């Protein structure tokens, strides 16, 4: 039986297009110091550091964890780098949690980041290969045909994605850390924004952000340093599958369904829509909200878009299961950190620490991340109550 573990501190930077005032190391340190402060701890209290980010080719700094050890107070301590593409923010948190749940460490600092302003993600994701044509048009170009297939199958109205884009930006306007601040955004504004990868418009896609997110995860007997209550980790799971195989279900990937089933079983959840109070789900392109509502069992297959259109996932419409009250990936996307922000925001919700985007009385929350060709998944459930 694993030891209990809880999040006792979260720290984030403000997300923006370019943080010219700090280096990569400075960016991470800012998030780490914020998390330690939130936990009521100093670097000297930390037993191990777990760090994650998206591919090294983005910023062109290879094995950045080596040079970041100083900035994270990791000298003389165990340090580990995690890499699972876009889902890395989530899987890094899970690896940090397992360091504590194994009983090996008492307090672990975990940090993820991306400095997209120093990076060329499109180039880094588009290396030419002789056995394929070189037509990579970024992540949006990859996911747009999968979204088109979802639209065909579900017969969803054309403006479901537009609704998600508006909803998450209205949420983001409640979160002072969010990159995009668009309190007056309208359906018409999103619909009229430039088409990038039909059927995806500019405002239906995530921004490119600089930013970092950190957490302190502690063992059961070390949760009292923080002034705020702990967020108990009730379950954590990862799954992956190949990018390409004949007959692969790309709209509703099996790895996502299996990962959700695992994490729900650990947390004793049978009906996620009814039992969870809030979810922070990785939605970098608008239509992934209805697609993941189905993949994660919040709605029957083909019905996810109805929840979105009914306002079930909206704070502003008093929905019963708010998704991404922080504004989500659609409002801030420092790629390597984006998954951890979902996990940290879930923890903030059950600690009653989410400010203007707090879901009243939230006790049980889900954090989710995906990456690669929607093939890597990581998820956790955190709760206000000790399991």
């Amino acid at each position, binding site marked *: 039986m694993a030891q209990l573990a809880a999040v006792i501190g979260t720290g984030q930077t403000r997300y923006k297009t370019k943080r010219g005032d700090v280096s990569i190391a400075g960016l991470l340190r800012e998030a780490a110091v914020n998390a330690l402060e939130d936990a009521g701890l100093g670097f000297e209290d930390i037993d191990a550091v777990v760090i994650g980010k998206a591919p090294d080719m983005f910023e062109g700094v290879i094995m950045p964890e080596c040079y970041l050890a100083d900035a994270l107070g990791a000298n003389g301590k165990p340090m580990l780098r995690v890499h699972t593409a876009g889902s890395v923010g989530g899987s890094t948190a899970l690896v940090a949690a397992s360091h504590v749940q194994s009983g090996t460490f008492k307090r672990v600092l975990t940090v993820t980041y991306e400095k997209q302003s120093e990076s060329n993600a499109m180039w880094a994701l588009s290396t030419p290969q002789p056995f394929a044509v070189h037509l990579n048009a970024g992540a949006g170009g990859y996911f747009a045909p999968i979204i088109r297939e979802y639209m065909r199958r579900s017969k969803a109205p054309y403006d479901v994605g537009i609704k998600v884009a508006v909803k998450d930006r209205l949420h983001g306007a409640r979160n002072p850390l969010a990159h995009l601040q668009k309190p007056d955004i309208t359906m018409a504004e999103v619909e009229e924004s430039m088409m990038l*990868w*039909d059927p995806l418009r500019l405002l239906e896609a995530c921004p490119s952000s600089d930013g970092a997110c950190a957490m302190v995860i502690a063992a059961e007997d070390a949760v009292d340093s923080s002034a705020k209550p702990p967020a108990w980790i009730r379950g954590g799971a990862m799954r992956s599958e190949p990018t390409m195989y004949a007959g692969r279900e790309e709209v509703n990937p099996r790895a996502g369904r299996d990962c959700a089933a695992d994490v729900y079983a650990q947390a004793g959840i049978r009906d996620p829509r009814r039992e969870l109070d809030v979810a922070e789900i990785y939605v970098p392109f608008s239509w992934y909200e209805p697609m993941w509502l189905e993949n994660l069992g919040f709605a029957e297959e083909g019905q996810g878009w109805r929840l979105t259109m009914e306002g079930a996932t909206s704070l502003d419409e008093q929905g019963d299961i708010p998704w991404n009250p922080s504004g989500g990936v659609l409002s801030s996307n420092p790629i390597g950190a984006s998954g951890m922000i979902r996990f940290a925001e879930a923890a903030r919700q059950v600690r009653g620490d989410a400010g203007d985007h707090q879901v009243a009385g939230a006790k049980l929350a889900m954090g989710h991340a995906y990456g690669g060709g929607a093939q890597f998944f990581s998820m956790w459930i955190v709760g206000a109550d000790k399991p």
Partner: protein
Amino acid sequence: MSDAREPVTGIEAPVYLQYQFTAGRAPSRFLSALKQGRLTGQRCPGCSQVYIPPRGACPACGIATEEEVTLSNKATVQSFTIVYIPIPGNPIKPPYIVANLVPDGANISFIHLLSECVNEEVHIGQRVEAVWKPEAEWDYKMDNILYYKPLEEPDVPVEMIGKLGVDGLEGKQS
């Protein structure tokens, strides 16, 4: 210098990478066939699915693929996107269509350009055909196919996409 006191917040430091690609047995056969103007795949001995480009193993079954299959120049649109932004370093002018295409005889799609078409009329299940470069320009590259263009053939029902034999709708299911 008057700007000497301006803080340096960033400098351009380009990274260039050049790799030697070792094709391995399966891609090597695939690329050699491409040089002769043929599209080929490999069939998995476990699930019978035909892969293009063949990478030497079936990702679903985890076993080696050996049997080589010659595929058709005809293909079906599994899905697509109309791209409105340029590809870095590529002269193609937006908007252009990047389609997920399944060639007849294969069970998996690859992406390629769709051209000589009205963008608004492209649809899932549409039949298309490869347009090859002149023979003199053929190399060990998928770029030997310039693009695909629409065919005057009935659409493939959605449930049949990815399941056609090398003779298309007329032939047997693969």
